[in-house]
């Protein structure tokens, strides 16, 4: 279906890397699904093991500020990523249900095909670009160790491993292991963020379609009358109106599926910003890391904001249709709908913090305040 196709690329990437379950319909062979389950469990254990190795290294190097700051940022990123993976692993049923609801016929009306196609094209390009950035960054990170090793200098990997990697063969093995896990984690982070952002973006598109349907309600009723002149104008109007109402109810119930890790991500982002500024780290790396965190935070807040504003515009759209000459019963139906539509849909992280651009500004302001105060007290 058209709206389901917007998350197609995300699910493809996630399934290839072993984060998301295969869909029910495609498990034609039991063997394949069992193998995929094993692959998923393996990926999760691998990332957790890497995380533990980093923790041990951080504990060992806790007196050396430079190395500690390098590994702390990676550690925090990996903790966030493992948390997201756990959600996808343990809540796989709810995610499957969410994906299945996207295939509902009322989300995929052919008359609004262009909007849906544009939305899926944009979503797919975005996830390729975002994950591509993560992969490129990870690839660049292994360039330096290779250069140092070729020049004969000592290379130190930021995780605890008991193998001696001064010899080339062991060095290659350890390098590949590190590259594989960091790339996996990078893809996990970015694709999962893009997945949730796309779901929110799809909600926004559905609201836009709903607004267009409301604005054109009387004109569509008149057109239907022209085709089939036996019907009553009022009856046609009421029928189309019910249709729009059901669509609205479905969108609203879809958004209520919350991802509890949204709150976790916001807190981690704020903590990471403050942490980074306090630890001594070189300027270029700090800018890079801060921009990564801000991008992740901005993604959630921007798409949450888009959904809220689009649902707020619903009232204006209903008002701007030609209701002046309609039957009083229809106008009273509009009134009840307007009463409900006046409360905008606000996606919230952990059901408490609303995802909006104001939240984004507040987090940045609070982080800067903490940072300034901490700097003064150092």
């Amino acid at each position, binding site marked *: 279906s058209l709206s389901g196709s917007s998350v197609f690329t995300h699910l493809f990437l996630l399934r290839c890397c072993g984060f998301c379950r295969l869909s029910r319909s495609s498990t034609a062979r039991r063997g394949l699904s069992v193998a995929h389950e094993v692959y998923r469990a393996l990926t999760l254990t691998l990332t957790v093991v890497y995380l533990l190795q980093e923790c041990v290294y951080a504990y060992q190097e806790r007196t050396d500020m430079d190395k500690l700051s390098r590994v702390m940022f990676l550690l925090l990123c990996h903790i966030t990523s493992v948390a997201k993976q756990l959600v996808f692993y343990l809540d796989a049923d709810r995610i499957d249900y969410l994906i299945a609801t996207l295939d509902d016929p009322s989300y995929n009306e052919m008359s609004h095909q262009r909007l849906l196609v544009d939305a899926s094209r944009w979503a797919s390009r975005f996830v390729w670009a975002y994950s591509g950035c993560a992969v490129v960054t990870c690839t660049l990170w292994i360039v330096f160790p290779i250069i140092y090793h070729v020049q004969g200098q000592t290379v130190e990997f930021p995780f605890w491993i008991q193998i001696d990697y001064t010899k080339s063969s062991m060095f290659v093995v350890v390098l590949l292991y590190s590259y594989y896990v960091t790339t996996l984690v990078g893809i996990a982070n970015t694709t999962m963020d893009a997945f949730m952002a796309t779901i929110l973006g799809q909600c926004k598109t559905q609201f836009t379609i709903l607004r267009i349907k409301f604005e054109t309600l009387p004109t569509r009723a008149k057109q239907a009358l022209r085709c089939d002149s036996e019907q009553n104008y009022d009856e046609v109007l009421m029928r189309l109106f019910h249709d729009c109402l059901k669509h609205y109810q479905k969108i609203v119930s879809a958004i209520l599926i919350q991802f509890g890790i949204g709150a976790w991500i916001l807190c981690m982002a704020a903590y990471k910003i403050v942490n980074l500024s306090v630890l001594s780290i070189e300027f270029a790396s700090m800018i890079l890391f801060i921009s990564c965190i801000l991008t992740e935070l901005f993604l959630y807040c921007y798409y949450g904001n888009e959904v809220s504003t689009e649902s707020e515009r619903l*009232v204006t759209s209903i*008002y701007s249709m030609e209701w*002046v000459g309609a039957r009083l019963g229809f*106008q*009273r139906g509009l*009134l009840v709908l*307007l009463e409900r539509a006046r409360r905008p849909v606000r996606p919230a992280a952990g059901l408490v913090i609303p995802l909006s651009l104001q939240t984004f500004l507040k987090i940045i302001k609070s982080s800067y305040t903490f940072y300034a105060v901490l700097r003064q007290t150092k």
Partner: protein
Amino acid sequence: MMTKVKTQGLVTDLMPCIRLLQAAGHFLFNYHADTSGMNMLLRKIYSSAHAVLIVVHYICMGINMAQYKDEVNELTANTITVLFFAHSIIKLAFFAFNSKSFYRTLAVWNQSNSHPLFTESDARYHQISLSKMRRLLYFICGMTVFSVISWVTLTFFGESVRMIASKETNETLTEPAPRLPLKAWYPFKTMSGGGYVFAFIYQIYFLLFSMALANLLDVIFCSWLIFACEQLQHLKAIMKPLMELSAALDTYRPNTAELFRVSSTDKTEKVPDAVDMDIRGIYSTQQDFGMTLRGAGGKLQNFNAENNPNGLTAKQEMLARSAIKYWVERHKHVVRLVASIGDTYGTALLFHMLVSTITLTLLAYQATKINGINVYAFSTIGYLVYTLGQVFHFCIFGNRLIEESSSVMEAAYSCQWYDGSEEAKTFVQIVCQQCQKAMTISGAKFFNVSLDLFASVLGAVVTYFMVLIQLK
């Protein structure tokens, strides 16, 4: 010499402002009578020349800032100046890239509906909005000229020096600098002679035109808001006659002559005395008792009509029915206008607030170093007042829009809706639903333009200032 260009709607009302924008060098090439290729080319060259001159001087100021970046005092002062004039560059570029949406907003009110019964009210409020727009334009132009004059005057007071901290002795030395309004780097010598005069005149030009560029665009935005607010006032004013009109539709035998005289006198309102709880004092006329439209008679009822149940001719009945349609369509038009204004100018407001926030933070720091009534104090306070004034300018009009749009609901409730027809009562309900959420202008969805924004900015400046004073 120049044939008058045919304009309509908002363009006619804003023509003086548009001409000033074109004179200041914005890339505004529409609304000319004569659109021959030669003249258009001349106008484009004029605007580009202004843009080039202003950007070149801005870069000179930037070079000066980079030259003296090691001195903390100089750096702060130069940063404030550079940020101050960043508004002009941003607005110039913003208009150049967004001129299509400006033209679209200016064209929103080209066709507006009308109703024979309400033309007088429409014209009256239109006139009020015109006079308010003119007064705003004169005020802002006056303030701009006054700022330039006072800046130039202030240049001739005090020592024209730069504070340099000497590395060896660790004390501040003074280095002589040219007595010019702005500190900038020039490729020629400007301490005295021809170079000094040229630089002085260039700087006066730069001051005047860059301030005009920024302020006039804000004037256009605020004029749009004034227009929208006066339209809402007009809609509120005709709500009462509208209700009376609709009551004529499904009641019996009104006195039509009396009804179609739309009275603009509001003698019936009597504000009750707070001490005197005598309710009879409030309802003092027959109209208030509601006895005129149903039941007991009164001057609006006429029991002498024979055949026509409403006592209206066909034309009068059509007028009555179309009044509600006029009101709703006019309100939808205002909603479209406000949405268009928000889409056009929202991003510019976001940039303005961003730059102003950084400027005000630095100014709070500078203000802690004031140590007496001298040139430094005057210039710092001048910058502060001007920056806060710019923010206040659009906050107050944004706030007025919010208040006007949410008070439409009160006007709808305070008219005699209970005497209206069923259709009128449902109309009041739907309008109240739409008006409960006030129409706001948002800065690209990050914030809403209202006096709350101004209060938070002012509060932040005062807080920074107090904290920095304590830390000194």
